[in-house]
């Protein structure tokens, strides 16, 4: 979702002219016009899921938690976000500088 993508307003020429191929290309081009749509949709979805997590405060809803922290609102969300960010950060900051070599390293 770079600037290049957002400039693409219509489907480019395809090798395949079948109708479903053209439809798919049109659909993707629409997303590319505004990648923020995806982000907005995702933020709404996250907010909705966190809101659902509040339901477990009501009597009759039980998480069957094995650990106390599972009962915290949005625990899994925070954990998922932090885990992924940690993978990006560690991979970029520590692993890549240590292991990256030229493509023909073994040749």
């Amino acid at each position: 979702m770079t600037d290049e993508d957002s400039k693409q307003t219509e489907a480019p020429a395809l090798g395949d002219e079948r109708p479903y191929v053209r439809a798919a290309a049109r659909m993707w081009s629409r997303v590319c016009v505004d990648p923020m749509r995806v982000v907005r949709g995702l933020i709404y979805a996250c907010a909705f899921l966190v809101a659902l997590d509040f339901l477990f405060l009501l009597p009759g809803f039980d998480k069957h938690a094995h650990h106390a922290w599972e009962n915290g609102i949005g625990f899994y969300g925070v954990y998922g976000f932090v885990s992924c960010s940690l993978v990006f950060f560690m991979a970029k900051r520590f692993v890549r500088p240590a292991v990256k070599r030229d493509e023909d390293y073994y040749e």
Partner: protein
Amino acid sequence: MNSLPLPPGLILILGALLIPFLRGWAKSAYVVILPAVGFLNLICLTSSFAAGGEAEVVRWTFQFMDFELVFGRLDKFSLLFGHIFSLLAVVAFIFILHTRDDLEYISGMVYAGSALGVVFAGDLITLFVFWEMLTLCAVGCALARRTAEARGAAFRYLVFHVAGGVILMAGIIVHVVQTGSAEVAEISWESPGAWLIFLGFGVNCAWPLLHAWLPDAYSKAGIGGVVFMATFTTKTAVYTLARTFPGEEKLIWIGVAMVILPLFWAMIENDLRKTLAYCLINQVGFMVVGVGIGTDLALNGTGAHAYCHILYKALLFMSIGAVMYRTGKSKATELGGLCRSMPLTCLLCCIGAAASSFPFFGSFVAKSMIVSAAAESHHTIAWLALLFGAAGVFHLVGLKIPYFAFFSRDSGIRVKEAPTNMLVAMGIIAVLCFTIALPVVNLPWMGYRYLYGMLPFELEHAYEPYTFAHINAQMLLLAFAALAFVLTLLAGRYPAEARAENLDFDVLYRRAGLATLRFLDRRLNAINATVKRWVVDGAVAKLSRQCAAGPVWLVAQAMKSVWEAQRLDAETVALKEADLYRRAKEGAVPIGASALLAAALMAVLLAL
């Protein structure tokens, strides 16, 4: 009824021998019909087992020296693995139907047969034979790509796995000699062979430090070959570990390392097949943790996850394989925007990606059993690691793979949609990924209850995956993982895809091997050259010259005194002497001189 069904592995292995003799459509039809017959045979076997109502049935036993070889140890666990292996063999052959490549067909067929052989083996000797056949077939699958780098990877695979096989064989020999039993059963640590067997299984299971063969070979193997490789090798290793070391705590920590470490390498990897290979290690890590926990729920989870993981990982490898087939590329930096020209492959890849995590897809009903088992058995660190792995792998398999192959920036590649046989194969798996996780229904291959019905243990409290709490927790995990991905991408903080070779532990033997070769070249060859200079060309040559010149010199001295007695002048003597040396060199010594030499030698001998 006793002769039917047949041993499942042997049908495929013996049937494979016919493949080279068939041509054209007959060959294509045969390679699909044969595994299909194998699969039907397995269904017959399962139903006759279920009708018998026994916990374990032993069939097809042969006496070999003092041992009883068992080709058919049937129980729910072996039948579960047998079921998914047979099923996948059929679909994988539909996927490679267009290649008509004997090497790939035979390797794949024998591969599937050997995996079934390992699963149904009741003794360690039979298991070992099929185990080694797995290695050879994997090498065949890698070679089928027919490129120089595939040959290199195949050779490294062979060397590494043969080393693992030798360790396993040593372990089995020690174990059998010590305990007197070759049965595939729980192995006690008191048996001195236990460590060797443990390590031998670990090589095929791609444990940390022993894992580098997997991304190396899987990223270079044939398009169809990698589907067989991804399905059989690691899963048979998980199965044998579950048979021999269930509940072994070391496995929990090995599994945790497998879940966490490969994520970082998958993250920075440019080759999409290599990324998938690292994610495969991560998922096998879940299974290894399940075996390590060893409770009924955990082992059921291991079996169920192996079943679902085989399906969706095969689908992902197939979809990237289809992209490679059309574009000849598999690197993120070279691909992108293919959803425009390969929309069906894109859709199927997205289903495979979704099947790795989302509710209403395979993995959701399977992997969560292992996570729950970790929580229930109070392995909190392992539980946290599994959640970490689940979020991380969703971002990699679920987002990175489809995004860089089919979306991302437009690479400008315009190709045709994947061939029909590939789409059919991927379609079958995509449907299975979805139907196997359906709630409510319970029909063959439809509904998670069908899957749970195949699992080895009856649970006291039936595991229920579709609870509001579980679905919400899983969706929160996934949605926020996706949010982290999208935000990082938009902020430009996402590790950019870069053309690079990322070192892994194979650097130890790939570089060490080269260094050894160079060392031998420089050091040992230098010793060789010195020895040649001083001994071969120096001392030996000198000795040989002396040996040849010595007698002539003796003769010359003797003749000189004769010539001087004849009062010849100095010039003539010099001429005669030169003539003598020339004749000696040419081997034309006059009889007189020879006789004189003989007499002189005899005199020397007598004097001595």
